[in-house]
């Protein structure tokens, strides 16, 4: 048990100068409380997660994420409250198809894309703008651990927002119009599997887009332009030849969604990538990105004046 902190606490005084015991020089004993490398790294990552949670859930900057996450839900809520006699909602299958389009077009390609852009590009860039990055760089943390901690914090924040949003979106899309059929489909049909497939796709999209935006935020002083170029690339993915389609996140997410969505008559067809390839491939991609990000961060200097 470390007692150093206790001894400091019990000899508390109220002014700067009057604490009598030796303050500096006993840091060796204080540091004996530290653990092995793995435990230390876990503690450091947990600290980063706590710091980032405060920044991302409670700061004014996070308002945009709340608004983005609320947007599909508000749309679905408005649709849900339209009286049944105004419009014919068709069968449950029709609703599922409509939701698949809604999910890919709005949730996946827009809300999650821009939400991840905002969260992950601000992980480092936001600290530079706020001039608070040096607090991390002055801590005894390997830059690799710093990057992993930051990335995991981004994944935690983005999935908290968007997996939750996806879950409520599924419920709002189905229950108001086909409550009984939906519950039956959930318990006896493939409703539960589809719901988990959507949630899993959202999770993987956060992981994939997060990695891309972390890198963009590190390598570009103004990351908005590359983010918009990436947005265009992802939207036009359906027009690309099969080889180029695979250089995107949306291609793999498109392959994972439970209800296939066609992109219209101009779509260049390509075989979907199976989950046993796309998921490990995504994780390998994330590993490569984190390696590059760590390399970049190791060489980083604090030059706020130039930002």
């Amino acid at each position, binding site marked *: 048990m470390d007692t150093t902190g206790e001894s*400091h606490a019990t000899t508390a005084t109220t002014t700067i100068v009057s*604490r009598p015991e030796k303050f*500096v*020089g006993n840091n060796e004993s204080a540091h004996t409380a530290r653990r092995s490398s793995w435990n230390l790294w876990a*503690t450091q990552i947990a600290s980063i997660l706590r710091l980032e949670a405060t920044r991302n859930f409670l700061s004014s900057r996070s308002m945009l994420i709340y608004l983005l996450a609320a947007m599909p839900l508000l749309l679905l809520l408005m649709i849900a409250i339209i009286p049944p006699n105004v419009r014919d909602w068709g069968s449950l299958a029709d609703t599922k198809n409509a939701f698949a389009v809604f999910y890919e077009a709005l949730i996946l390609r827009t809300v999650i894309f821009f939400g991840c852009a905002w969260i992950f590009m601000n992980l480092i860039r936001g600290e530079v703008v706020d001039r*608070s990055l040096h607090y991390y760089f002055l801590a005894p943390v390997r830059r690799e651990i710093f990057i992993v901690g930051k990335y995991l914090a981004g994944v935690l924040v983005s999935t908290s927002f968007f997996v939750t949003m996806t879950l409520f979106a599924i419920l709002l899309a189905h229950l108001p119009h086909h409550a009984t059929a939906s519950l039956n489909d959930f318990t006896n049909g493939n409703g539960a599997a589809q719901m988990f497939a959507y949630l899993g796709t959202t999770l993987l999209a956060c992981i994939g887009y997060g990695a891309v935006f972390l890198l963009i935020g590190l390598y570009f002083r103004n990351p908005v332009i590359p983010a918009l170029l990436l947005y265009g690339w992802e939207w036009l993915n359906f027009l690309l030849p099969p080889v180029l389609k695979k250089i995107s996140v949306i291609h793999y997410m498109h392959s994972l969604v439970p209800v296939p969505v066609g992109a219209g008559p101009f779509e260049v067809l390509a075989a979907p990538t199976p989950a046993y390839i796309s998921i490990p491939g995504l994780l390998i991609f994330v590993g490569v990105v984190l390696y590059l990000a760590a390399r970049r961060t190791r060489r980083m200097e604090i030059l706020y004046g130039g930002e």
Partner: protein
Amino acid sequence: MSQTLAANSDRMIVFDDVSKFYGDILGVNRISMSLAPGITSLVGPNGSGKTTLMNLLSGLLRPTRGRLSVLGMNADQPEQLFRKVGYCSQFDSFPAGMTGIRFTSAYLGLHGFDRRTAHELAWTALERTGLTEAAKRRVAGYSKGMRQRVRLAQAIAHQPTVLVLDEPLNGLDPLARAEAMELFRALARDGSHLIISSHILHEVEAMSDRVVLMNNGYVVAEGGTQGVREEMPDRPLQILVRCRRPAALAAALFTGEHVTEARVIEADNTSGLLLRTNDSEAFYLLLNKIVAEGRIADLGLEGVAPVDDDLQHVYDYLIGAGRSH
């Protein structure tokens, strides 16, 4: 490298031909010096390279050329280095939404301390900087002096042995300044390195073991104030001797070669001799001899004091009076 040298470098901060350029702009150039434990003050005008030197020392910047080590470590070993180094920078910015105690303790988790220990260390640091009453208030509502103190608390919370403090007295009221200076002295007495930049020369002089004078990215002089002053042969030391017969004393002193100029000062109730010497030690020996042998009758020696061996004069001579510092 011999064992003694290696052991010494493990206790020293060593700059070895360190240069830093921001593109084409010079930050610091060819800095070579070794700093022993104690208080070292960096003094120089704005843009002289003080903050660059501190940022290099704390690993926030990488040298363009040369090497530096802190207690035998460098910035490529952050896990070891930053356990020993605390830096209170001039960046007056904080993560959003944090209270004083949260700000001070939050980053201690990165040192590997558990939450309870981190909280206790943070509280101790806040006590040392006199900020416990405001500890649970948000930093955003702090005055400038309080923000300075909470940054200082954050820098010392993990009990570093090397403390780098960039203008740490800025924004503090006179009482807090005195308390902070006493804190710095206490830390130095415990064997810590304190590297402090300040533009308040009399305070620097009062607390420093050595000063490093910087100008335009170069170290102009380093050492104790007296030592630096004595190494300025082109600037003979001015000494005021108060006595009843200054003219006679001047004549006697000119028998030695080290007195270069003497001016008799006569005022209403006092008289004296203001003289310049390029060898103060020889001058004092000669003066002692004159007095001891009673060479001048009724000399009435009242006092002898150098008038330009303080940091302000050293600064003015080396860097130039009137420049902001």
